[in-house]
C-alpha cells in the first residue's frame, strides 16, 4: 500500500438483477453478466489510472489487462459489480464514473451504428439515447482509510436512481422499457408499422438474433448484439476484444448434452443431420459443446433438434411443415439404432454464494485473507464447471452462476464447495473466518421462461439455503412446465453421508435400480413408485401443520411407511426393523434441518443441526425426479 493512499473509495454499479436476469436466452443472460463485469473492470482501470489500488476483491488481472490492451480476453464475467480501493486524498471519483460511462456509451454506439442506424427513425434515436444514458445506477463513497463503517451498505439504503418515463409499446424482454420503433399506438396500422420496423432489423441481423414478433428496447438489443461489435470498442486504455457470440449453449442443448455424449458417428446420425437441415433447422452453438464432444463428431445442431416435441409444433420454430415428418423419423431412427432414450427436457442453473462474507469484511484484519481465498477460488471455477459439461456465466468474488446438465449439477455444486473450502484452508489465519458456501440448484424444463428461473434462483438461495437451512447449505428446486414442483433444502452436513457423497443422489440411484442392496452395504432402498406416492398420503393425513411435530408423530409415520415398504413387493424385506432402517435415510432427507451455529469449515463437526419441522414430501419427490431424470414412470418426457 502506498503511503499516499490515505483514503478508501467504494464503487458499485447496478441494477444487477434488472439487467442480467431479464433474459429470454442463455446468451442474453451471459451478455448482461459480461457487460456488467466489463463496466466494473473499466471503473477499476480508471481507479488505477489515478493511482488507486484495488483492495477488494482482487481483480482478475486477465480481464483487467484485456480492457487495457484489447486483443484477447476472458469470455466470462469475473469482476463483481462493487469494489473497494485505496486512493489518495486528491482522488477524483467523478473521473472514474465519466470514463466508465464513456466506455459504455461507446459500446452502445457501436451496436447502434452497425445494426440500427440505417433503419432508425428520429424517435428511435431519442429512445436509444434516453435508455442508454439513463439505465445504470452508480454509487460511490470516499472517506479516510481507517473508517470502518459499512459505507457502501449505508449508501445503498438511499437509492437515488429514478429512470425517465417510458411510454409506448414495451420491450419483449425487459419490463417497463419502450421498444425502439417508437410507434406508440396499438391500432392495426400502428402494429403493422411496428412490425415493418422490426422486420427490417431482422432482415439485417438475421432470425437467429431476433425472432418474429420480438421488439426490443436499447438495453435488450445491446445484450443480444454486443458480442458481434465488442471488438470494435477502442478507447484509450479501455478496449473490447473478440468474443464468439455463439459460444453460449442454449438451455435445450444443455438438456440434450447427456444423450449427445452417447451418440456415436453413424449413417443414422448423418441422415438425421441432413433431414434437420432440409427441414430448415439451424446449426447450434458448436463451440459451446464440451471439447470431447466437439472433436468426436459434429453434434452442433440447434438444441431443440434433439427433442421430439419440437416436431409437433414446427411453425413456432420456423421449420418446414412438409419436411418435418422426415426429420422426426430420422431422429427416432437414430435413437433406436443406438439404443438411446430421447434426452430429458430438464437442465440446471447453479447459483452459489459465500456465507456471511459481508459481515466478515467489516473487520479489516480479515480482509486480506478473504481476498486471497476468493482469488484462488474464483480462478478455478471455470475448470470445475467445464469438467461437469456446464457453461460458466459468472464467477467473481464469492459468487458463482453456471448452467449445467441435470446429471452433473449436484456433483458440480459439491466440487465447487470443496474448492471453496480448500481455497481458504492453506491460508494462515483461516480459522478466523467462516469459510462456507451455500448453493441453489434449479432444475427447469426447457420451455419454462428463463427470466422466471433466474428470478427464482435468488429466492431459493437466499430463503431456502441461507435463511431456512441456516447457511452452509444446499437447496434444490424443480420447476416443471406447470410450475414449481418441489423445493428441498438441507445443510451440507445433513446432506452428505460419511463418505462425502450426497445422500439424496444415492437414494435416487437406489430407487432407479442402478444399485443393489448388497452393493450399497445392505441399506439400499428398493421400492415402487406407488410407495413414494404413499408417502405424500401419510404426510398429508398424519401431519397437522397447526401443531408442533414431535417424536411420537415421527415414529408413527416411520412405522406405517415401513409396513408399506414391505408390502410394496419389490424387495425381499420381511422384518419391520429392517424396513425401518431402509426408509430412515429417505425420511431424514424429507425432514427439514437447520444449522444453528455459524462456524468455520474446520469446526464444522461442532455445528449444531436441528430438526425444524415435520417431514415434507419434497425430499421424496426430489429422489424420484433425479431417479427418472424428470421423466414420468414410463420414461416419457413430461
Amino acid at each position: 500500500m502506498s503511503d499516499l493512499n490515505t483514503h478508501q473509495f467504494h464503487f458499485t454499479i447496478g441494477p444487477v438483477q434488472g439487467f442480467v436476469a431479464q433474459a429470454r436466452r442463455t446468451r442474453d443472460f451471459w451478455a448482461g453478466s459480461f457487460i456488467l463485469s466489463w463496466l466494473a473492470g473499466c471503473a477499476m482501470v480508471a481507479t488505477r489510472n489515478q493511482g488507486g489500488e484495488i483492495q477488494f476483491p482482487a481483480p482478475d488481472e486477465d480481464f483487467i489487462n484485456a480492457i487495457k490492451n484489447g486483443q484477447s480476453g476472458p469470455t466470462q464475467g469475473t469482476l463483481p459489480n462493487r469494489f473497494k480501493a485505496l486512493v489518495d486524498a486528491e482522488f477524483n471519483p467523478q473521473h472514474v464514473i465519466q470514463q466508465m460511462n464513456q466506455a459504455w456509451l461507446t459500446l452502445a454506439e457501436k451496436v447502434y451504428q452497425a445494426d440500427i442506424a440505417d433503419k432508425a427513425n428520429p424517435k428511435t434515436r431519442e429512445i436509444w439515447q434516453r435508455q442508454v444514458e439513463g439505465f445504470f445506477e452508480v454509487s460511490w463513497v470516499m472517506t479516510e482509510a481507517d473508517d470502518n463503517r459499512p459505507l457502501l451498505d449505508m449508501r445503498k439504503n438511499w437509492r437515488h436512481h429514478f429512470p425517465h418515463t417510458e411510454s409506448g409499446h414495451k420491450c419483449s424482454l425487459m419490463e417497463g422499457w419502450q421498444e425502439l420503433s417508437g410507434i406508440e399506438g396499438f391500432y392495426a396500422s400502428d402494429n403493422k408499422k411496428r412490425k415493418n420496423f422490426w422486420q427490417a432489423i431482422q432482415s439485417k441481423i438475421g432470425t437467429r438474433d431476433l425472432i418474429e414478433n420480438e421488439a426490443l428496447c436499447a438495453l435488450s438489443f445491446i445484450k443480444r448484439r454486443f458480442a458481434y461489435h465488442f471488438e470494435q470498442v477502442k478507447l484509450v486504455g479501455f478496449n473490447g476484444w473478440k468474443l464468439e457470440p455463439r459460444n453460449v449453449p442454449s438451455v435445450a442443448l444443455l438438456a440434450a448434452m447427456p444423450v449427445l455424449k452417447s451418440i456415436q458417428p453413424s449413417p443414422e446420425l448423418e441422415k438425421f443431420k441432413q433431414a434437420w437441415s432440409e427441414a430448415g433447422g439451424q446449426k447450434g452453438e458448436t463451440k459451446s459443446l464440451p471439447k470431447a464432444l466437439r472433436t468426436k463428431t459434429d453434434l452442433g445442431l440447434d438444441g431443440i433438434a434433439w427433442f421430439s416435441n419440437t416436431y409437433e409444433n414446427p411453425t413456432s420454430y420456423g421449420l418446414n411443415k412438409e419436411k418435418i415428418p422426415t426429420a422426426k423419423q430420422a431422429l427416432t431412427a437414430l435413437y433406436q439404432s443406438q439404443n438411446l432414450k430421447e434426452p430429458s427436457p430438464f437442465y440446471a442453473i447453479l447459483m452459489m454464494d459465500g456465507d456471511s462474507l459481508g459481515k466478515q469484511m467489516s473487520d479489516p484484519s480479515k480482509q486480506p485473507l478473504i481476498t486471497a481465498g476468493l482469488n484462488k477460488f474464483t480462478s478455478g471455477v471455470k475448470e470445475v464447471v467445464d469438467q461437469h459439461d456446464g457453461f460458466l456465466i459468472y464467477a467473481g468474488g464469492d459468487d458463482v452462476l453456471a448452467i449445467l446438465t441435470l446429471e452433473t449439477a449436484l456433483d458440480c455444486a459439491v466440487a465447487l464447495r470443496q474448492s471453496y473450502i480448500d481455497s481458504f484452508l492453506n491460508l494462515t489465519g483461516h480459522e478466523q473466518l467462516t469459510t462456507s458456501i451455500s448453493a441453489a440448484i434449479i432444475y427447469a424444463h426447457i420451455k419454462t421462461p428463463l427470466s422466471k428461473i433466474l428470478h427464482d434462483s435468488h429466492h431459493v438461495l437466499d430463503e431456502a439455503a441461507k435463511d431456512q437451512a441456516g447457511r452452509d447449505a444446499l437447496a434444490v428446486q424443480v420447476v416443471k412446465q406447470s410450475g414449481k414442483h418441489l423445493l428441498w433444502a438441507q445443510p451440507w452436513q445433513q446432506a452428505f453421508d460419511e463418505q462425502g457423497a450426497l445422500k439424496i443422489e444415492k437414494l435416487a440411484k437406489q430407487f432407479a435400480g442402478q444399485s443393489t442392496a448388497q452393493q450399497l452395504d445392505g441399506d439400499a432402498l428398493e421400492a415402487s413408485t406407488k410407495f413414494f406416492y404413499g408417502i405424500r398420503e401419510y404426510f398429508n393425513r398424519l401431519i397437522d401443520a397447526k401443531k408442533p411435530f414431535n417424536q411420537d408423530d415421527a415414529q408413527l409415520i416411520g412405522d406405517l411407511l415401513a409396513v408399506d415398504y414391505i408390502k410394496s413387493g419389490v424387495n425381499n424385506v420381511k422384518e419391520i426393523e429392517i424396513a425401518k432402517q431402509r426408509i430412515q435415510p429417505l425420511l431424514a432427507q424429507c425432514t427439514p434441518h437447520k444449522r444453528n451455529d455459524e462456524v468455520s469449515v474446520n469446526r464444522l463437526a461442532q455445528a449444531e443441526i436441528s430438526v425444524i419441522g415435520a417431514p415434507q414430501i419434497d425430499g421424496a419427490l426430489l429422489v424420484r425426479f433425479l431417479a427418472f431424470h424428470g421423466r414420468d414412470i414410463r420414461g416419457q418426457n413430461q
Partner: protein
Amino acid sequence: MSQTVTWRFTPLDTWFFKQALAPDSLAAQELTSLFPPSPRTLIGALRAAVGEAHQVDWKAYREGQQPQIAEKIGAPNEALPPNTQFSGVAIRRNGQGYYPMPLNWLAIPAQQGQPKGYQLYKLLPDTSPIHCDLGHVCLPAVPKDAEKGAKPLEHTYISSKAWAQLQTCLQTSAFIAETECLKRDDLFKSEPRLGIARNNKTRKTEDGQLYQTKHLRLAQGISLEIDSQGWAVESHLNTVMLGGEGRLAQLTQHHTEIAQPITLPNQAKGLILTLTSPAHFQQGWIPDGFSQTERNGQTLWQGQINGVELTLICAVIGKAHREGGWNLAQHQSRGVESLVPAGSAYYFEVNQNDINQAWSALQNHAIGQDTVIGRGQFNLAVY
C-alpha cells in the same frame, strides 16, 4: 366537507394486474402480476362500473357525445371523476388495515424460544457526513447495539397497530409480533395460466399467439380499498371487472373511520415522513420544492410542505417503483413512471415552527404529483 367513502374490492375470482412487458411475448416470457395494483386500476374499474350502471354507450362517450356520463365519471381523457380526491390503495385483512413496512426499520427474526416476530432496528442519520455521489451527507446508519444481519423486511405489510407503535418510538429498537405482519404468502398465491390471443374480427386464434400469465388468488379475508372524497355515486354498484382479463370483484361501500390522532412524544428531535403510497416527484427521489444546499460542509435539502419549513438531512429510499398501465380512452399504454416506493422515509429537521406545530400541520397531507389519485401519502414518525 364532503364525506369520505371507502370502496372495498373483494375477489370473486383470480386477479391479474399485468406488468409492463409486451403482450406478444410468444410464451417465452411469463407475464406476472403486480400487487397491489395502481390506484388508476381501481379508479378505472369504479368509473367503468358507474358508467355501465348509467347504460353508457362507450363509443359515444369517447367521442364526447355523452356529457351527462362525463359529469359523473370524468371526461375520457381525464381519467378521474370531477372534483374527486382519492386515497389508497390500502390492503385489508378481515377488516384490519395494513401499511407497507417502513424501509428505515431493519428486521431480524426472533430467535427460537422467543415469541414469534421480528426484532427491529431503526436507521438513523449518521453522526458525521460522508463524501459520496450525493454530496457530503449523513447516510442512514444501523444503531451500534443492533444485532448483525438485520435487513429490510421486503414485501411485507404491518398492521396499523404495529405502525402506531413505530411512529412514536424514540428508541432505536422495537419488537413486532409475527401476527402483526402480512407477508406475500399471506396475501396471495400465484396461479400460472396459459392463454391464447384471439382475433376479434375473425373470432379465431392464430399461430404463435400463446401467452403465459401468472394470476393472483388472494387469500381468504384479503381485500383492497380505495377512498374517495367528493364523488357522489347514487348507483348501487355490486360487482365490477377489475384489472387484466376483466376478472370479477365484489364491491362494497363503507364509511371511513376517523383515525385517532397520535400524540407527539416529548424529546423528539425531528420528524420522519414515511410514505404509505408511492410518491411521484419531479426530481426523482427529492420531494418537490426542495433544493440542495450546504451547511458547515454538509449537503442538505431545504423546502416546505404544507407551509412548514423543513430541512432534509437524510433519507432511506427503496428501489424505484415503476408503474404504468393502460389508457383505455386513448387505446395505448401509459408511460411507465419511476415513483419513490411506499415505505421510503425522509428525515427532517424542523426550521421555524416548533416540532409540535409541524406535527399537526403535516397530518393528513400528501406530497408530490398526482396526489389526487392517492400518490405521496405519508405517516409521520419521530427520531
